[in-house]
């Protein structure tokens, strides 16, 4: 043994550097993908969506809805009657999705969609209560007033951001609570329905409601689609759309090369508030027929979800809005027949967003296991 060691020392001048000892299970390393094929991307996205939906089904199973019953309820959405309520539901959802998406496009976290819906509803109802404008154009005036209400409420937050650097995430969320208490103040006070003594405004007159346009489709949907078309034009075709992309990529650079950053931001954020205000308007004038306590419940996160899944693209917003409306209507059915609280919809929404957000990581990075 001794000899061998001596010989090796003499004959091999420098031993090769030792490999570091293997440690346990190894570790992950991340590579940034430069490119990814659309098929792979779709596969990852679809896979995570499927996982998210599977988790939702498991949770609902634990809550007492067997997957088979769930499938039956989901299929039941596609009969004529439920489809109608899906279309009615889709209108405000598309509008809040557009509102969220427009603001997110320039990096403004408008989380005050519910507050803006509330003020949309309040302004529209004020037009009805104080009989503003002739009967023939009343519904139009209500719509304009509702947009104004939404704009007012979102611009307050924007003003606080620009003037005092108040983070809009916090201010818009807090303003939701303020708006809903203001709504309660009106509904338990001056605007309470004198006939029923319930905390809701009195019923709108027929000409103050969005009417059906044949085969049960409500004109609320037309309002939503029209706004989506305008938004799609603005985002994809107009110069403002190009400016918006510029601002979200690099606001300082945009300012330096002469993009009117302030004006564009102001207009886009106002449009976002107007869309949310209109969502409140179509909700009260097509579904409820009066101002109620909770017509805006659950729309903030729905707006975020729609904007997030559609990547702020107004055309995709319409599609996602419809799909979410299916979820909403199913949620209502489950609430009625299985006593599952409606917050279940929020839970499923959150799981979907989490699943899709996680998939983005795998789309952007390649994970490797090295030992």
């Amino acid at each position, binding site marked *: 043994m001794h000899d061998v060691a001596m010989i090796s020392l003499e004959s091999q001048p420098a031993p090769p550097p030792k490999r570091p000892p293997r440690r346990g299970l190894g570790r992950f390393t991340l590579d940034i993908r430069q490119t990814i094929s659309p098929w792979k991307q779709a596969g990852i996205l679809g896979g995570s969506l499927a996982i998210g939906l599977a988790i939702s089904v498991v949770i609902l199973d634990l809550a007492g809805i067997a997957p088979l019953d769930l499938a039956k309820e989901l299929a039941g959405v596609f009969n004529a009657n439920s489809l109608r309520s899906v279309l009615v539901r889709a209108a405000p959802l598309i509008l809040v999705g557009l509102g969220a998406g427009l603001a997110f496009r320039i990096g403004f976290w408008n989380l005050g969609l519910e507050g803006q819906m509330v003020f949309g509803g309040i302004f529209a109802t004020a037009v009805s209560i104080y009989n503003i404008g002739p009967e023939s154009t009343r519904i139009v005036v209500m719509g304009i007033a509702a947009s104004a209400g939404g704009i007012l409420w979102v611009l307050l937050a924007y003003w606080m951001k620009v003037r005092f650097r108040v983070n809009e995430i916090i201010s818009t969320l*807090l303003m939701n609570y303020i708006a809903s208490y203001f709504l309660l103040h009106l509904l338990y006070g001056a605007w309470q329905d004198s006939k029923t003594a319930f905390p809701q405004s009195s019923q709108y007159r027929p000409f103050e409601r969005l009417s059906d346009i044949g085969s049960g489709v409500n004109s609320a949907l037309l309002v939503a689609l029209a706004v989506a078309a305008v938004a799609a034009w603005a985002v994809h075709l107009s110069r403002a759309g190009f400016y918006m992309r510029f601002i979200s990529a690099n606001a300082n650079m945009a300012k330096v090369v002469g993009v009117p950053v302030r004006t564009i931001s102001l207009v886009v954020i106002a449009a976002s508030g107007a869309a949310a205000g209109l969502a409140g308007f179509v909700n009260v004038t097509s579904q409820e027929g009066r101002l109620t306590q909770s017509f805006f419940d659950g729309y903030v996160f729905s707006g975020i979800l729609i904007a997030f899944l559609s990547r702020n693209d107004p055309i995709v917003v319409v599609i996602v809005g419809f799909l979410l409306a299916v979820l909403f209507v199913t949620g209502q059915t489950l609430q009625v027949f299985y006593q599952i609280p409606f917050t279940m919809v929020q839970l499923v929404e959150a799981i979907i967003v989490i699943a899709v*957000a996680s998939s983005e990581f795998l789309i952007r990075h390649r994970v490797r296991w090295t030992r």
Partner: protein
Amino acid sequence: MQDFLINWLANVPGTAAPYAFAALGLIISERSGVLNLTAEGLMLVGAVAGVGTCLTIGNHPLVALVVAMLAASIVSLLFASLVVILRVNQVIAGLSVVFFCQGLTGLIGTLANWQNHPIAGLNKIAIWPLSDIPVIGRILFVQDPIVYLAIPIFFAVSIFLRGSMLGLKLRAVGENPAAADAAGLSVSLYRIGAIVVGSSLLGLAGGYISVVSVKLWITGMVGGRGWIAVALVVFARWAPWPALAGALLFGCIEGVVPRIAAAGIRAPQYLVLMTPYLATLAVMIWVGARNRGHQGEPGALGQPHVREERR
């Protein structure tokens, strides 16, 4: 008038405690560079877990609060894996977790039938003979044990962040994760640890609301206090003691709301209920107007760290 003041101020520690715990929990996780918007949701988790424990195993409020802390920590692992491991946008992840928790707690509370079942909860203790001192005796020395516990917790966290090696490393991760990584610290581990530990305090805050203050579970009972706590952290510039002062301020504001009606002052009820939110906005404006918006903010707040993306 004196009665009104004493009743009001005697309530303040109880209304301030949830804000204090929540803000402290947020400070711990945000000092590691993670923008944490989950407060509202994790407080709900703590609240439902606390009441659920009391209704299941009998009235053991201290056990219930520990369960509340554990439950919030466990759910926070979801947030931690989203933002630390999967590098999801921290705003999106935070909001998703809040709404996830709102849905989950609503579902659990209804299915387990914990809604609107009052519990005995935790009662106030009088520290005799100090409690017999006129005026301040009732304000300072007739409180529940958790309020007193807040003081050592604040000392501990403050010393941890400013005076300990671990706290220094945590802050380094939050200020400059690339440098901390180069120095051999595991950014991911520090951030996950900060989120989980901070979230236990969020759970305590929620459990305090349901087990100690309200002694009841109602869906969505946190009612925006989590968002106020997020604002409070900005106000306190990510430092524990100013956060305690801010919590007391909001405790005063929230504590005065029920007192106004009890004192027979006629005021529009729902407008009065707006005050905490309006006050928060006012405070945020004040912070902005002092023109020091970003002072104290951890340098890497909101930015995920991917070693391979080092710039």
